[in-house]
């Protein structure tokens, strides 16, 4: 297909100094038609698989969409009733706060550790490549597997983590990582950080590769090495990549569902319930699809803020 594009544009380019204006116009129009034709599959794909679900979800949130709707096709309009019941539920504020803590905690941890590792791996040392590929491991594991394994590791009585801490003599009784209302969220954030590190390292490492060595040499001549080199060379040069990583990370993290479901299912006592898990529970456990959709749309709205931010940041990054 790509060869066709070249040929078509090539022909059009040839046609420009053509003999008559009418012919030139004809070519131009045809070229425009071709352009649209090539856009069509992508546009159709977007409308089908992104546009339709989003519109459907918005409509659903204004309907009394229950299990019977699937059989009868009837879903009466209820206005803002779904939003009202979702937003007035005592669980909403808990979920909102948890979502904010989960997202902020995960992003902070993933980014700081990811950046640290990226800078570390920029140095040349033996086994660098192998270690770097090992770091990708969390990314390769299906999330449901990671959460099952972490559930064992974090078990209070027989979990590997508590056994390890006990053998070091740091604790005498097991810490209830996943079953204490004050620790569960932190534990879940910890696991999510582990999962998010590869993404951060990969992108930030790529950004670091783009910084020319000459800059460091010049900085070294001026006496800036180590921390000062990082502050005055690495960080400013890396900033465009950093903003992209952060904004993408936020959007990814807001919608995290499988890890929380696999680790705690939103418990104990809703202490790890987020808007995403709450939306899932409403739709697929309580079968209140309308309310689930309303909750989902709240999340979409929040993500949208960051998506707009991403587009702006991205444009600036490209411009730079």
């Amino acid at each position: 297909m790509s060869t066709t594009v070249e040929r078509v544009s090539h022909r059009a380019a040839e046609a420009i100094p053509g003999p008559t204006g009418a012919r030139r116009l004809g070519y131009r129009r045809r070229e425009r038609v071709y352009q649209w034709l090539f856009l069509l599959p992508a546009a159709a794909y977007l409308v089908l698989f992104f546009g339709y679900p989003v519109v459907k979800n918005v409509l659903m949130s204004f309907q009394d969409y229950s299990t019977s709707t699937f059989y009868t096709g009837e879903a009466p309009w209820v206005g803002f009733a779904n939003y009202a019941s979702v937003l007035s539920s005592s669980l909403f504020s808990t979920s909102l706060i948890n979502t904010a803590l989960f997202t902020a905690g995960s992003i902070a941890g993933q980014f700081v550790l990811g950046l640290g590792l990226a800078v570390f791996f920029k140095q040349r040392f033996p086994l660098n490549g192998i270690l770097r590929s090992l770091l990708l491991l969390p990314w390769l594991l299906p999330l449901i597997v990671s959460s099952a394994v972490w559930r064992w590791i974090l078990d209070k009585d027989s979990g590997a983590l508590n056994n390890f801490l006990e053998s070091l003599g740091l604790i005498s009784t097991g810490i209830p990582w996943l079953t204490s209302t004050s620790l569960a969220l932190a534990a879940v954030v910890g696991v999510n950080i582990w999962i998010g590190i590869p993404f951060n390292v990969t992108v930030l490492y790529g950004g670091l590769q783009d910084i020319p060595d000459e800059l460091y040499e010049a900085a070294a001549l001026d006496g800036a090495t180590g921390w000062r080199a990082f502050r005055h060379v690495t960080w400013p040069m890396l900033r465009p990549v950093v903003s992209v990583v952060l904004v993408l990370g936020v959007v990814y993290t807001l919608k995290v569902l499988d890890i929380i479901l696999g680790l705690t299912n939103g418990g104990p006592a809703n202490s790890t319930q987020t808007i995403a898990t709450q939306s899932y529970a409403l739709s697929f456990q309580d079968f209140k699809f309308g309310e689930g959709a309303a909750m989902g749309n709240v999340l979409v709205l929040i993500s949208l803020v960051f998506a707009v931010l991403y587009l702006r940041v991205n444009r600036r990054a490209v411009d730079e």
Partner: protein
Amino acid sequence: MKSAFVSTKAAALAVTALAGIPLVLSGCGASPAPGGGAVSEITVVDYYNNEPDKSVIGNTLEACGSQSGVSIKRETIPGKSLIAKVLQQASSKTLPDVLMLDNPDLQQIAGTGALAPLSDFKISTDGYPEGILSAGTYKDKVYGLAPTVNTIALFYNKDVLAQAGVTPPKTWEELKSAAAKLTSGDQYGLAFNANATYEGTWQFLPFMWSNGGDEKNIDTSETAEALQLWTDLVDSGSVSSSALNWTQADVNDQFVAGKAAMMVNGPWQIPVLEKQASLQYGVVNIPVKDASKTAVGPLGGEVWTVPQTGNKDKQAKAAEIVACMNSDENQLAMAKARNTIPSKTAVAEQFAAENPKLASFADLVKDARARTGQLGEDWPAQATKIYTAIQTALTDKATPADALKQAQEG
């Protein structure tokens, strides 16, 4: 010029093909059922996708099919995806001829109008206990019948109890003191599952129900007493607080590993327990508050239904399959192979005599209560409230009474 034209055609073709996808998809769904006359094939959907259940149920279905002169086209879907699949099939009018449902989901699906009442096909409902029929009933009509059922009871490690000089507890006081005595070192006295799913609710029901608690309103002193018992057991350290995150399979692992002397669990764990040569276990009713109370178990098991597919001939054949699955012989054979209990009272009695290990379950199942018996379609929402209250109380965020009150008020 030529090459450009050819590729335009190709592109146009690609576009039409893409745009055509939905048409093709809906075309599949709308294919008309073969009209009238002999029915040669019956489609079946169930969630028995693990052995030995997969083969046991599959073979029984095959046998029933050949008895009715039809071939069986069976699809097994993992339990968690079944309802989503059924709803999709309902909206695209592609429901199978015979559908298996977990009993607490039956009323939800029957409420949509997707199922046919079994009385339409003159399927007998005689000989089933009240609880089992009510699990398959929606608005006074029976829509589903379970060939075999189950419930939960108290498993105990015979050797550990004998060593500690403890007899299997019958009352809550006995349970508390037994669990305390059996707790030492790495070993907890008791294990149950209090996780944030319907499984957690299901494990709590026998305690709540046998004390007179009721799911319609959980803000009562009877239910609070039951929850107080669980809270005491966890607070005193007789039950690990990990129970808040365990599944029933995890609970079984703890019991098998010798980390719990007793556990609340169901007969489906028996195959795993039987594999442990050194493990001697017994099964008794879940303890009740005092001798004046009777043990009430929650009813588990799957019902077979006939969806409204619009093809009367096929529905009639499907009903024959459902009736055949529920015949006395098949109930007995499937119960034996799957460590579950035949649902008909008379068959269950015969079964208990032949399989003493399952006798206490057979006894419990007679009076077992269906989760949806009272609330029907409203059960999922209330079940969520129950496990939320359990978790709130067990993590000491509120007293049992307050936790139940908060949960009931939403």
